């Protein structure tokens, strides 16, 4: 069952799920204090921070409320993706015609994302990153790394299998150079321009007068209610709903289906409060499909990342074009395999093969990762049938045993493929080699550039259990128009209400597919900034 927002009206045909039920209205007598500004922004993440700074710089009075504390605020991400930033152009990245990214984006999402929003991202994201870097010192800027750059020679114009990727990701995720520093610097500029930040205050419900959203009621850590009135607009930039499992199962029912309704699904984000506040005020959900960052991916890829190496399922059978938009596309088929393990298999020509990987989310950056892989694989090759433990550096992962062998039959055994599945395993590799040698993948239509026979022992294998449903964040939300106004019934804007970042829809549809890694954060910052400018200009 999918809740679409209209259930709250008189034309209800389905019961309203609990997560969507509006709370009892907070009365004026319960309000402890009232504040007022031109723009009221709910959530000081990537979108909200950029909106606050942009609105303040445009001369508007600004109030920001944020659930977390100032010092302890956790800002998501380890990098961002933008097009044509000065920093990249200076370091040698190519200039891209923005409409080329728009074209690629709409293809990947089958024209179900909002071209008016993506166009703004393509045109203004580089300039927004320049703007964000203005207050940062040399040390910070010098510490920014550009992943996948310089690219391997074959890169050309970035056409990768069936898709195209763009160079424009920036790694900003260590102690001296991280996104929290970047956002705090912009928050400081906003404060210097008079913006008032209320940390440790949650948004509870929007205030509506005669069909117009005029403010929000927040609650502080002591449980006291505060009213924040907006003269020009309220911006919902309060994040996603990955930690609201009932909402997640209803709205992303592909995940409910992939997991047979069992186990836990969810992510590292928020409880959907921003989106729900928008719904209670008459907003409607974007029709989707409703993507998540990772929820539809079947299994961990291991040390070889999302590289296009052969994948086999529990039965020892090949199941996908392994080069299909890296981890996301390939992962969609992983999650549709029988219960059990998903295995990656490769040979000792792996260094050369890694040259044929593209700069998408989840792929290895050969400029930095090669050495540690060499060490790991040497250890794996030297280990016996017991294998060698690989410790995934990502949080919450326990070590997984990897295996090597000098022939496919032995590798199958070590990986736990027995009898029929062991025979399938060997047959699948032989078939794959045959296809690679003929240069046409008749079985899964993989781009021949990514099709390499496994012919140099030792051969390696990594298995991980199929387990979809885990994600960082959800990527859909309220239906918005080109000005990020929240749309209600009939796609009509709700006066005074805006949404940006993971509260909003129209940015991702099919999946978290990344022509530039970090695009979600790049969009949040770019469109957040534009929303701030727009509200200030009203």
């Amino acid at each position, binding site marked *: 069952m999918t809740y679409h927002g209209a259930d709250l009206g008189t034309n209800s045909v389905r019961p309203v799920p609990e997560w969507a039920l509006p709370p009892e209205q907070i009365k004026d007598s319960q309000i402890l204090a009232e504040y007022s500004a031109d723009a009221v922004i709910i959530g000081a993440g990537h979108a909200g921070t950029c909106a606050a700074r942009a609105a303040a710089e445009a001369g508007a009075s600004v109030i920001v409320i944020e659930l977390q504390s100032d010092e302890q605020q956790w800002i998501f991400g380890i990098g961002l993706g933008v097009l044509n930033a000065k920093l990249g152009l200076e370091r040698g990245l190519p200039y891209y*015609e*923005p*409409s*080329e990214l*728009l*074209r690629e984006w*709409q293809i990947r999402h*089958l*024209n*179900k994302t*909002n*071209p*008016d929003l993506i*166009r703004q991202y393509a045109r203004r994201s580089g300039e927004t990153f320049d703007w964000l870097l203005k207050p940062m010192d040399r040390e910070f800027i010098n510490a920014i790394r550009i992943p996948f750059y310089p690219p391997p020679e074959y890169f050309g114009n970035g056409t990768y299998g069936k898709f195209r990727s763009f160079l424009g990701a920036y790694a900003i995720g260590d102690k001296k150079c991280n996104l929290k520093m970047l956002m705090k610097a912009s928050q400081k500029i906003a404060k210097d321009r008079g913006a008032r930040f209320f940390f440790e205050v949650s948004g509870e419900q929007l205030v509506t007068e005669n069909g117009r959203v005029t403010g929000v009621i927040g609650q502080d850590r002591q449980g006291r209610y505060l009213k924040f009135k907006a003269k020009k607009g309220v911006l919902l930039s309060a994040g996603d709903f990955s930690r609201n499992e009932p909402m997640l199962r209803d709205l992303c*029912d*592909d*995940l409910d*289906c*992939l997991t*047979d309704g069992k186990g836990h699904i969810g992510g590292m984000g928020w409880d959907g409060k921003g989106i729900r506040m928008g719904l209670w005020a008459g907003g409607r959900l974007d*029709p*989707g*499909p409703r993507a998540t960052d990772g929820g*539809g991916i079947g299994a961990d890829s291991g040390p070889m990342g999302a590289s296009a190496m052969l994948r086999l399922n529990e039965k020892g059978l090949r199941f996908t074009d392994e080069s299909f938009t890296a981890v996301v596309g390939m992962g969609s088929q992983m*999650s*549709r*395999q*029988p*219960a059990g393990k998903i295995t990656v298999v490769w040979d000792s020509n792996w260094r050369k093969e890694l040259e044929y990987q593209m700069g998408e989310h989840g792929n290895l950056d050969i400029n930095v990762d090669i050495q540690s892989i060499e060490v790991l694989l040497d250890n794996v090759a030297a280990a016996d049938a017991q294998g060698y433990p690989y410790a995934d550096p990502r949080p919450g992962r326990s070590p997984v045993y990897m295996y090597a062998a000098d022939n496919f039959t032995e590798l199958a055994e070590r990986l736990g493929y027995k009898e029929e599945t062991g025979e399938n395993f060997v047959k699948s590799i032989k078939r794959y080699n045959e296809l690679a040698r003929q240069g046409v993948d008749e079985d899964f239509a993989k781009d021949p550039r990514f099709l390499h026979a496994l012919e140099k022992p030792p051969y390696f294998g990594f298995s991980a259990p199929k387990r979809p449903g885990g994600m960082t964040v959800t990527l859909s939300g309220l*239906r918005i128009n080109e000005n990020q106004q929240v749309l209600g019934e*009939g*796609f*009509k804007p709700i006066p005074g209400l805006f949404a940006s970042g993971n509260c909003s829809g*129209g940015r991702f*549809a*099919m999946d978290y597919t990344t022509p530039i890694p970090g695009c979600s954060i790049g969009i949040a910052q770019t469109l957040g900034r534009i929303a701030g400018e727009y509200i200030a200009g009203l």
Partner: protein
Amino acid sequence: MDPGPRATDGGGIGDKSGIMGGTAFLRLNEFGKRYTDEGFMCMVGVGSQAARQPEGKLSTVWDAGWREELEYQATEHGNIDIYSERGADFIAGILKEAAASGEKGADYLDERPGMGIRKVYAAHTLELLAEYLGYSGESRDNFLASVARYNDLAHQGRDEDFAKDPIFLHPIEKPPFFGSVEQKAGKVGNFTVTLGGLRINSQQQVLGEDYHPIRGLYASGNCSGGRFGPDYSTPMPGVSIGIAQTLGRLAGLHIAGLKSEQED
């Protein structure tokens, strides 16, 4: 169930298209604004954006050069087959009538279920065409600005706004100008058939919990999932029926080849 997304044949299309079908002519919304790459996978891709437009009308606009432009259409579901009896000659007849009918427009019968009598308008100026199509005030100004912008993009040969393939990008400048219009209301949600269904494996065995096959049970055609994903997208029109026949036949052969109560 197959996890989907669960496509339907036409349910997500907001604009069923007028006499010019799913061709890549300029499309404008209720406010007179352009809203999509009109060359995106014809009716299905364009219709996805039409479905996301404000309530009200959706119009298609073209000019006297339409016959040549029809040569630049892909052979997808919903496009005009210029050789058919409702192809170029039929269209020419209706457009000729429209050119002589002014604000009344020309009527023709759209033979698809639920469509009925449709209208096409013609005018010697874009201002007049906008009026015939029901645009006034700000939306009329937008209409004219959108056509002018579209023509600029067509002349420069690069669609900076929607990234349409330049092959499909032709300026609208040769009178008479033509337009058709329809209301978005009632379009989304009406379709021929659904295309999602039970989760099946490569033998078309129905899969139960944890993707384990249910012994003895098969599904094919529109009972089964895994054939269409986001939409009824048609690299060949008629694919859905082609799949049903091909996989139906294979399922029959597979079941016939089993020994009774055999572990399948």
